[in-house]
């Protein structure tokens, strides 16, 4: 039985190995003024393994870097995306693009991909990948919303959760919160009850001035680890540098 494993490439971009298949989440392989990973990009596009599928949660550049990802060697790779990403993906030459709305599912080589709800500044979905008794939940950068509590009821046990934790706020939009914070991510962890949880999206920076003028965020993932210790003591939190592969 192939191992379920996760390798964080950078930010919310991961390689997920499940059921002998390999999936990429929220590709981000370049930088722009005011958009920085704040950590290395562990694997470049030429060095990506053969992908069985790509999941894209929403169209924001730091989750949907199609300009860079279009250099991937096979643009017939199946893309499972939020509906708002379809047109851009096709424009970038990807030929096998499927929009998944919450609770819709697709199947690739024995792995079931189910889109799940999300809420962010723009339309977004999260995803559950399942193969047999293993399931990986991937949340790009959603807020904590009540609908997420339905995931274990509807889709069964989650083994691994990949969650944002930086509680990103947009200062000029009345300091609106657009991403769950460490405590909220721990609350969701308590609902999902995975064996393993990996925080992401915390190193992101808009640069010296952007972090002051535009965004406000918590860059310390230890807060999530501490909160999970209290709220979901059965879950092991692994804070990993980009490029480190962790097995379930």
């Amino acid at each position, binding site marked *: 039985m192939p191992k379920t494993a996760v390798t964080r490439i950078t930010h919310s971009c991961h390689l997920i190995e499940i059921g002998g298949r390999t999936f990429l989440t929220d590709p981000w392989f*370049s*930088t*722009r*003024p*005011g*958009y*920085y990973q704040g950590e290395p990009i562990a694997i470049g596009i030429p060095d990506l393994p053969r992908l069985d599928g790509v999941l894209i949660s929403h169209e924001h550049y730091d989750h949907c870097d199609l300009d860079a990802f279009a250099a991937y060697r096979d643009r017939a790779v199946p893309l499972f995306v939020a509906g708002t990403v379809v047109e851009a993906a096709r424009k970038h030459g990807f030929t096998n693009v499927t929009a998944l709305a919450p609770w819709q599912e697709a199947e690739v080589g024995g792995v079931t991909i189910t889109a799940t709800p999300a809420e962010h500044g723009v339309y977004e979905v999260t995803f559950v990948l399942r193969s047999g008794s293993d399931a990986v939940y991937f949340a790009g950068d959603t807020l904590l919303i009540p609908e997420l509590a339905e995931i274990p009821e509807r889709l069964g046990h989650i083994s691994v959760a990949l969650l944002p934790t930086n509680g990103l706020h947009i*200062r*000029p939009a*009345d*300091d609106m919160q657009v991403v769950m914070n460490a405590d909220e991510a721990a609350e969701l962890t308590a609902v999902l009850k995975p064996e393993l949880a990996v925080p992401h999206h915390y190193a992101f*920076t*808009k*640069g*010296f*001035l*952007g*972090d*002051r*003028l*535009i965004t*406000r965020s918590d860059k310390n993932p230890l807060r999530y680890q501490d909160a999970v210790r209290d709220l979901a003591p059965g879950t092991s939190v692994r804070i990993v540098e980009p490029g480190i592969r962790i097995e379930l």
Partner: protein
Amino acid sequence: MGITTQYTVDLDEVGPVEVSVAAYGSGQPFLLLHGGAGPQSVTGFAEKFAAAHDVRVLVPTHPGFGGTVRPESLTSVPGLAALYGALLDQLDLTDVTVVGNSIGGWITAEIALLKSPRVSGIVLVDAVGIEVSGHPVADFFSLTMDQVFELSFHDPEPFRVDPATLPPAAQAIAAGNRAAIAVYAGSAMTDPTLLGRLGSLEIPTLVLWGESDGIVDVDYGRAYAAAIPMARFQLLPGTGHSPQLETPDQVDHAIWDSADTDFSAFAR
């Protein structure tokens, strides 16, 4: 004290350009660009800012200013922007905040328009460069130095000098600066295309303006900020066209503590 280094930067269509860069402190990088008043109008602030915050502030002397040589084919503000964009590449700097005063602010805007990922934010301090109907840039070349001081400062007295009393070397440098301003910025100190191009910027921007600026007035500054989608405008009281000279603590506070000011201050 800063450490000054001469760099040779290869620039397309110009060739190798010698540029003198004074560096203050170490850490988070800032590129600080002077205006027509020359590098000494920003070096005091650079030293103070670097010491206060453990950051690295780089102050280039625009070729032709301060007695330096300007290549004949380096004749425009976009040319200077390309020079500094290439310098940032050469120095392999990232997350650079570019701060510019007056013509330095115009160069800063042009650097932002290059959209280099090395530049993460810009601060325009009483910048020139755009055309705003009814709010012309004061005609520097037709003014006496006394008039320039009157228009440039909230309180000109501490800064006023009589050019005739300067030593010959300083007079020669001042004349060189004046010639360089004419070449790079022209007599109008504007580019009619700049305002329209600023709308494409997606870079965090702080626009600081001296309330008593008589060279470019406050409404001109507000128009600058309104043209840049992510710009926040901040008025600095009791200061003129060169706030980093007249009220450096205000500029330091406005940049370093910019997260503390309220969100309604955004231009849009």
